[in-house]
């Protein structure tokens, strides 16, 4: 579903991402690990076509994102560290608006409330302005948008950082349910525990290069941390 072929991004001679090649199949949860500046966010921005690659290509559902910027986004959903919503609008109005722009303009209130329930948001919150929402609630609205859109691939950029353990756990459960339903997930994260818990594969990035790939059932949590730290040593 998500493919990168020798994907490279350089800014004024500085290589942010170096010949990344990876594939995320439906049902996969691929966790990108690495220090700040390792190229994780750059990868996600390239898939979203927010920046254009210096060389190589990023494909979504077999289509090059630079050539079909709108068509490829129809399959994508994006959840950043904090999902940004319109604070003057209610949660439901936000969901309805983003779903409409994503190509689902005819959802009924019942359907929208259904997505709200599905991601574990209280129905009473639906008609409250988003200005009053906690971060965990915003992240859930982000997932609800992805659900309403029927996204086939999810791009997550440190979606659980700053969430309390309970909210973080709920978020992981949602991810598992989505990937179980055949969604391909690419997640950038610092959270090794979450990566082990909800990921099917991990990739370790260093200075823009993917230095290792493993499946998560290869090792336990402690092993993952050890492998990660070994790679981080200079």
């Amino acid at each position, binding site marked *: 579903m998500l493919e990168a072929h020798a994907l490279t991004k350089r800014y004024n001679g500085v290589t942010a991402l170096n010949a990344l090649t990876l594939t995320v199949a439906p049902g996969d949860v691929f966790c990108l690990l690495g220090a700040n500046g390792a190229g994780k966010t750059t990868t996600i921005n390239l898939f979203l076509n*927010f920046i254009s690659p210096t060389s190589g290509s990023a494909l979504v559902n077999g289509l090059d994102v630079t050539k079909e910027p709108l068509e490829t986004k129809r399959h994508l959903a994006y959840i950043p560290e904090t999902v*940004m919503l*319109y604070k003057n*609008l209610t949660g439901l109005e936000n969901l309805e608006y983003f779903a409409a*722009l994503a190509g689902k303009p005819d959802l009924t209130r019942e359907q929208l409330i259904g997505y709200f329930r599905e991601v574990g948001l209280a129905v009473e919150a639906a008609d409250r302005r988003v200005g009053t929402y906690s971060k965990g609630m915003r992240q859930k609205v982000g997932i609800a948008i992805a659900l309403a859109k029927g996204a086939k691939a999810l791009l997550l950029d440190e979606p659980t950082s700053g969430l309390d353990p309970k909210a973080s756990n709920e978020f992981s459960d949602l991810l598992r349910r989505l990937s179980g339903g055949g969604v391909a997930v690419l997640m950038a994260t610092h959270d090794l525990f979450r990566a082990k818990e909800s990921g099917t594969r991990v990739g370790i990035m260093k200075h823009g290069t993917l230095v290792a790939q493993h499946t998560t059932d290869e090792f336990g949590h402690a092993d993952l941390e050890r492998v990660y730290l070994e790679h981080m040593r200079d």
Partner: protein
Amino acid sequence: MILRIARKELLDLSRDGRFRMLSALVLVVSVVSLAAGWKTYTDLAAQHRTAQQATREQWLNQPKKNPHSAAHYGVYAFKPASQMAMVDTGIDPYVGVAVWLEAHKQNEMKYRPAQDRTAVQRFGSMNGAEVLQVLVPLFIVLMAFSAFAGEREQGTLRQLLSVGARPRDLALGKALGIAGGLGLILLPATALSVVALALSTSEGLLADDPWRVVALGAVYLTYFAVVTALALWVSAWASSSRLALVVLLTFWFANSVVASRVVSDLAAWLHPTPSAVEFQKGLEADLNNQEEMEERIERKRDELLKQYNVASVDALPIAFSGVSLQEGEEHGNEVFDKHFGALFDQYEQQNRVFQWSAIVAPMLATRGLSMGLSGTDFGQHRHFITAAETYRRDIQRTLNGDIAKNQKAGQVYMAGRELWDQVPAFTYEPPPAGWVLGQYSVALVVLGAWLVGAVALMMRAATTALVD
């Protein structure tokens, strides 16, 4: 999609306390300016009706007298108040509304409302055109400056683009949302003005040429579209909403406040007009050129003597005193045409400078078209003056012709009501909308170019806008 975006923008705006305060303020100012315009119009229209009637009655009820005395007695011609002057008073308050038509002289217009005002009123009067040309663009800028830049700062632009929103649709949707916000204010104001128009006139809702109303509406809508597109363009490329606001406020100030003053100086420098004293001196010098006038009368006398084949003027079948009076008039008319014509041509050249200057400040195109379509620009002032002057010359010709025909040598000739009746009442028909648009062809083209350019810039900036 575009409508969906517009609806959200409007919903978002309407929940913003600052927007509500601001729009209430703009609405109040619009209504006040409209009320002031309505009052001015109804006052003027009433005064115009009574004065026009009074001057006609005075003319008709003159006692028996020599026609030339009647010519000196004179009549007033009043410029009818155009209904649309309610929106844009233009130069009317400064140039006067009435002219006295008498023998030998082309008088200047009198009764300038601005003369009767105190200094405070002069500053305090906000007419509809100022609201539309100055206040509304500011309102648009305040609604639009954060449209893209603000969303970029809040991170919602990322969210929007990630779901696959088409940037072009975003730009158009936001423009439409702003138009909606503006409509919330302008629609009630427009509805009120229609009611005011209906109440103000016995001649029907649109006594003026309806095409003028349509064209005026189109001009303002075009102008607002230009300002909106420019504001969205700046908001899309500016790195922060603060920068967008600063850039847009600078443009607003230069365009709506500074430009007209600078260009007015520029126009006066390019096409200078004489001072009132100089003008009067030049005019009188030519008028008092007795030689030229006498030559003219002699020529006419020789011509008549030859035509009737007689030896002296006393033998002519017509009274030569009437003929020579008319020749004097013709001499004066030539002088007036030369001097007033040159002066008025300069004013029209200045007007062209304003129209071309709209290339740098679109408000100048709007300003000219607004005055023109409201019937309160210099072009229509001149149109009226020309009509009144033609009427004055007709009166003189009628009266002098009557003298030539009826004056008997050695008698004091007295004319009466039959002659006064031969002079028709003065009627004035303002030019149609097409005539006005013809006068402002440059402004129209420039404003159209601004619209095309601004929308193109907005679309391009929206598609190339960076997400952060």
